[in-house]
C-alpha cells in the first residue's frame, strides 16, 4: 500500500464521521485561526505605524544639541555649513524652536496650539503646502519679523477662513498672519496637527530668550541611506564637542524600527499564547485517535491477519491523525482569513482615525499549516504505535 492510497484511506475514514472529526479539529482550527488573526493584526499595526510616520517624514533626522557646559556650542551657521558641505548626503536643514506659550486670538486663549519657530525651508522639507498667503521667507528670518503662518484649524475656527492679514498674540507679542497652511488631516480639531502656528525661528529664539538654537531638523538625499547620514552628522558633531553626550541625532526611521520591534514582541507573545491552543488541539487529536484505535481493534486484527506489517498500520494511523490536523489547519487558515477581513471592517467602523488593515502574512499561513500537520504526526504517533503493536490474535477476538 503506497502513501497516496494510505492518504485516501485516511480521508475516507475522516469523512466517515464528520461531526466527530470537526470536533476533534476544533482545537487546531481555533489555534491556527487565532495565530493568523493576531499576526495579521500585528502586520496591520506595523503598516499603520509606518504610514503615520511616513507622513512625518522618514527622510528626516532630528538633531538635539545639549552642548558641553557653557564653553562650547554650535551655531546655526555651523550647522548650515555642515549641510552645505555634505550636500551629497544631506539635503536641507531648519532650526526648530518649540515655544511654550499661549496663543491669544482676540480674547480667546489657546494653550493646545503648537508654536514652532522654523526656517524658510521647513515647509518644503515637511511637504507642507501653503493654502493662502505665503510661507515663512528668508527675509522674515533674517529680520526677525513678527509674522506667522497658521494651521487650517485656527483659520477656519477663528478667522472664518480668511486669516491672512489678521493678527494673533503669542506671549504678549502681536504677530501678523501672512499665510495659512493647507489642511493636513481631514478633520480639524483642537490640539490636532492643524492647530499650529509657525513663526521665523530667529523671532522665536529671541522671544523665548534662547541664546543658541538647540534643535534642528535635517532631510537626507536618500531615505535608504539614512543610517549613513545619521552617522555622518554624529561624527561631525563629535568633532566639535569631543563628547557624545553633548548631542543626539535621531531618525524617524529608527523610531519606526523601534516601535515595530516592540509591536513584534507583543505579537510574538500573543501568538505564542494562541499557539498553546494548538498543543491542546493536538492532545484532542491524540485522545480521539486512541478511542479510534480501540474501536477499530478488530479491523486492525483483520488487516494484520491479511498481511499488513506493523509499519503499514502505523503509517495508516499517523497519516490519519496528520490529515485530520492538517485539515483543521486549512479550516483554521480560512477562518483566520475571514476573521481578518471582518476585523478590518470592524476596526474601520469603530476607529475611523486608525484604519488598521488586518493582513495575514503568507509566512504565518505556511507556518500554521506546517505546525498543525506536524502536531498531527507527533500526537498521532502514540495511538498509531498502540495500533501497530496490537497482537493480531487478541485483536481478532476483540468485540
Amino acid at each position, binding site marked *: *500500500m503506497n502513501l497516496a492510497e494510505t492518504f485516501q484511506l485516511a480521508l475516507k475514514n475522516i469523512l*466517515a464521521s464528520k461531526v466527530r472529526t470537526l470536533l476533534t479539529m476544533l482545537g487546531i482550527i481555533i489555534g491556527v485561526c487565532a495565530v493568523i488573526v493576531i499576526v495579521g493584526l500585528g502586520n496591520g499595526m506595523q503598516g499603520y505605524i509606518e504610514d503615520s510616520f511616513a507622513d512625518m517624514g522618514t527622510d528626516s533626522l532630528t538633531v538635539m544639541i545639549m552642548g558641553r557646559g557653557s564653553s562650547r556650542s554650535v551655531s546655526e551657521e555651523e550647522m548650515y555649513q555642515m549641510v552645505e558641505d555634505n550636500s551629497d548626503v544631506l539635503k536641507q536643514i531648519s532650526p526648530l524652536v518649540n515655544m511654550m506659550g499661549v496663543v491669544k486670538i482676540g480674547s480667546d486663549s489657546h494653550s493646545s496650539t503648537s508654536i514652532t519657530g522654523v526656517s524658510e525651508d521647513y515647509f518644503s522639507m515637511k511637504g507642507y503646502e501653503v493654502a493662502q498667503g505665503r510661507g515663512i521667507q528668508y527675509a522674515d528670518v533674517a529680520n526677525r519679523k513678527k509674522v506667522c503662518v497658521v494651521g487650517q484649524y485656527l483659520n477656519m475656527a477663528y478667522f472664518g477662513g480668511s486669516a491672512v492679514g489678521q493678527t494673533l498674540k503669542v506671549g504678549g507679542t502681536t504677530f501678523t498672519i501672512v499665510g495659512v497652511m493647507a489642511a493636513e488631516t481631514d478633520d480639524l480639531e483642537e490640539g490636532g496637527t492643524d492647530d499650529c502656528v509657525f513663526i521665523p525661528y530667529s523671532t522665536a529664539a529671541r522671544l523665548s530668550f534662547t541664546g543658541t538654537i538647540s534643535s534642528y531638523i535635517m532631510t537626507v538625499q536618500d531615505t535608504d541611506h539614512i543610517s549613513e547620514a545619521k552617522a555622518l552628522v554624529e561624527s561631525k558633531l563629535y568633532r566639535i564637542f569631543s563628547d557624545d553626550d553633548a548631542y543626539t541625532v535621531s531618525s524617524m526611521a529608527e523610531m519606526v524600527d523601534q516601535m515595530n520591534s516592540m509591536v513584534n514582541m507583543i505579537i510574538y507573545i500573543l501568538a505564542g499564547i494562541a499557539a498553546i491552543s494548538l498543543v491542546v488541539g493536538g492532545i484532542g487529536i491524540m485522545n480521539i485517535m486512541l478511542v479510534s484505535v480501540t474501536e477499530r481493534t478488530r479491523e486492525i486484527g483483520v488487516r494484520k491477519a*491479511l498481511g499488513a506489517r506493523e509499519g503499514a498500520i502505523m503509517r495508516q494511523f499517523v497519516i490519519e491523525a496528520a490529515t485530520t490536523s492538517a485539515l483543521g489547519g486549512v479550516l483554521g487558515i480560512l477562518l483566520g482569513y475571514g476573521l481578518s477581513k471582518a476585523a478590518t471592517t470592524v476596526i474601520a467602523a469603530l476607529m475611523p482615525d486608525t484604519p488598521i488593515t488586518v493582513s495575514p502574512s503568507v509566512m504565518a499561513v505556511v507556518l500554521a499549516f506546517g505546525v498543525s500537520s506536524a502536531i498531527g504526526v507527533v500526537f498521532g504517533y502514540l495511538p498509531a504505535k498502540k495500533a501497530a503493536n496490537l497482537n493480531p*490474535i487478541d485483536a481478532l477476538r476483540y468485540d
Partner: protein
Amino acid sequence: MGALIEFQDVCKTYHMGDTIVRAADHISMSVQQGEFVAIVGQSGSGKSTCMNIIGCLDVPTSGTYLLGGRDVGQMDKNELAAIRNQMLGFIFQQYNLLPKLTLLENVEVPLMYAGVPRAERRERAKIALELVGLGGKLKHKPQQLSGGQQQRVSIARALVGEPAVILADEPTGALDSHTGREVLTMLQKLHDTGNTVVLITHDNSIAVQAQRIIRLEDGRVVYDGDAHAPEAVVTPGAAGKGAGQ
C-alpha cells in the same frame, strides 16, 4: 519437497496466573499439498492454538512448524505478516469484513498489502467475487448482505492472493445449516480445483466433509486419518477417557 504444513513436536504454553496451560502438547502432524483436512476438537482442545500457529498469527513455544519448508518459528513479526499475506487465506467465523469498504475493496485488501498495482488488484478482486457468485454486488457494503453472502466475500478475499493454504476457522459457525452447506460446498469446490484447505471446527458433521480428520484433545492429537473411518467421529469424551488411561 516435503509436506506443505509440517508440525514437529509443536508445543504452546500459556501462563494463566500461576498455572501453565499446555494448549498444544507435542503435536506432530503434516498436511500435503492439495489435501482437505479438518482439525476437530471441542473448545479447549487446542484447535484454536493450532489454527493460530498454522495461520502464522502465533509461533510455537517449542518444536518446529514448517510452512512450505520454511521455519516459521524463527521469523520476526514483519516476516510473519508477509508469510500470512503470501501463503495463507483466512476465512473467519465472523467473516471479519471491513464494514466501511465495498466488497471489491474488501477483497482487494490482501493484494494491497502485497503491493499489487491498483488496476490489477481491481481486476483480480472482481474475478474472485464473480467466482463466489457476487459479481453483481461489487459496490455493496458488507452490511447490505446476508451472512452467507458475507462469508462468500470472505472466501473470495481468502482466494484472491492465490495462497498455498486456505484456512477456515469455523466457517459455518454463524450460519444456518442451509447456507452453511453452501459454504462447505464452495470449500469442497476449492479443494477440487487443487487448493489445500484446512478447516477448523468443533462439529463432526462438518468435519466429515473433509478428506482427512485430525482430532485434538487437551492439546494432543488423538486421531489422524480418513474422515470416513468410524473412529474419526467417536464422541470426544469417550476418546478422551480412552486416551487418558
